[in-house]
């Protein structure tokens, strides 16, 4: 019997953002010629926050200096490979910003102890409205589970949530769906946003989901999985294209980019121009 397809939340998000990017990244496995600095920055902040919570989880006092050391090491390592910065940002300015954001995060603790950090899940997808077993497994990692069973996702961003962004947040919906399928009830959810504003801000957005919401989420994941299985990979042009690592490959897919130029870009040449930085 064929094993069930397993799909992760980030794969679903990538596919929904641009199916062709999904193909380049997950099917063709094309190495990224560069990374957008904001993405790498978010990863470094996330690594330091993760370390902070794991220390607390282990019953140790998480020292601010140590949190910053984790961030500094991670951010330096991220910069070893080409990153593309926006006009207003640089390696040093983001390093400073990251330290300020982490200081704020640690000092703004809500007093709730974590019961799990980076908790993985993988389970058969079931439509919670109908009970139908869908032919795919879903996997993901929950950033933080707090003692009152609040599932938390942490994001860094340049600005606050757009209208409806909390309700549409697929990662939180998938966390809730996984929790419902595992434990039989719908958890509290929260999106913690660390904002890279001039003066960093921490916004905590509590939310929840209904069974109907989660049924919709399950069906959406199933449909994405089916679309991948049937190889529906098409571009989804949007503002994101200007900072897409696969911009050149996408142009080649359209047939408007000569192969030799693509090779040069894959080697890291002309990165700034392509990313619009």
């Amino acid at each position, binding site marked *: 019997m064929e094993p069930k397809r397993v799909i992760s939340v980030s794969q679903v998000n990538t596919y929904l953002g641009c199916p062709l990017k999904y193909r380049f990244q997950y099917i063709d496995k094309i190495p990224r010629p560069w990374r957008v600095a904001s993405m790498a920055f978010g990863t470094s902040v996330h690594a330091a926050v993760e370390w902070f919570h*794991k220390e607390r989880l282990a019953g140790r006092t998480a020292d601010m200096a140590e949190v910053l*050391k*984790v961030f500094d*090491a991670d951010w330096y*390592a991220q910069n070893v*490979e080409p990153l593309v910065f926006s006009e207003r940002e640089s390696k040093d300015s983001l390093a400073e910003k990251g330290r300020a954001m982490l200081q704020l995060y640690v000092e703004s603790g809500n007093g709730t102890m974590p019961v799990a950090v980076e908790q*993985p899940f993988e389970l058969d997808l079931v439509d919670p409205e109908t009970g139908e077993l869908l032919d795919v497994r879903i996997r993901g990692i929950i950033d933080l589970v707090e003692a009152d069973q609040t599932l938390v996702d942490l994001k860094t961003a340049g600005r606050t949530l757009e209208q409806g962004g909390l309700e549409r947040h697929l990662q939180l919906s998938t966390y809730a769906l996984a929790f419902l399928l595992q434990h039989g009830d719908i958890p509290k959810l929260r999106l913690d946003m660390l904002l890279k504003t001039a003066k960093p801000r921490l916004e905590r957005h509590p939310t929840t989901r209904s069974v109907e919401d989660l049924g919709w989420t399950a069906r959406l994941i199933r449909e994405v999985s089916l679309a991948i299985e049937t190889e529906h990979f098409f571009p989804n042009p949007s503002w994101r294209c200007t900072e897409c690592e696969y911009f050149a490959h996408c142009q080649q897919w359209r047939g408007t980019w000569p192969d030799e130029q693509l090779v040069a870009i894959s080697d890291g040449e002309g990165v700034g121009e392509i990313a619009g930085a």
Partner: protein
Amino acid sequence: MKADQQLVRTVDVHDRVGNVVGSKDVVLYAGLLNQAHEEGLLKVCTSILQIPTEENGRLAIVKAEVQTAKGLFEAVGDACPENVDEFLAPHLIRVAETRAKARALRDAVNVGVVSYEELDGVSLNRDSSPGSGAPIAARSPRHSGNGNGTARSRSNGHSRPPRSSNGNEPMSEAQRRYLFRIMSGQGFQKEAAENRLKDLFEVSDLAEITKVAATKMIDELLNAAPGNGNGGNGAEARHLR
């Protein structure tokens, strides 16, 4: 005592295309586990430090704690598609867990010989014999395999097939970040960390480091970290998570 009941075995060492290029003494997980039970094993528990994802080069890292009457022994194990056989690639977390437990068990029962499960590029000899240089500390308990089925597929006496990867892929972003965090834990920051890594790998550019070399170095650095008892995950390694 039958030869196949010995704790220490001699295994073939292969190059990347499957040619036998030498031999090595190893211990088997099953034997380690048996020895630990005989010495009063109290607890074995594991925790996942890193889930393998596409973003981190599918590197799974698991920490194991083994408690015996002698104390608590900690170790980490890792697995990625480049350091396991192809048929194990879908089971990276389990391989990393077995490797972590094997390392912790070795410390617990005071066996310095590396375990078969920790290695890549080796297979049990057809007529695997007790190792020559290592102490024979215990009998393998129930069978001659290694406790997780890998022996059977490797013990056919033939060179193993070429791998899909040639082992020369550059280290993953996750590995690079991990190494810098280890360096940070050892007091090397930023450029000093980069220079230290270049020295350790004997390269002039970090881009020259392969995934396989990075895996081995991470393993060695974690094992050598001060303050981690018998090869565990102590104060230095706490930065790694």
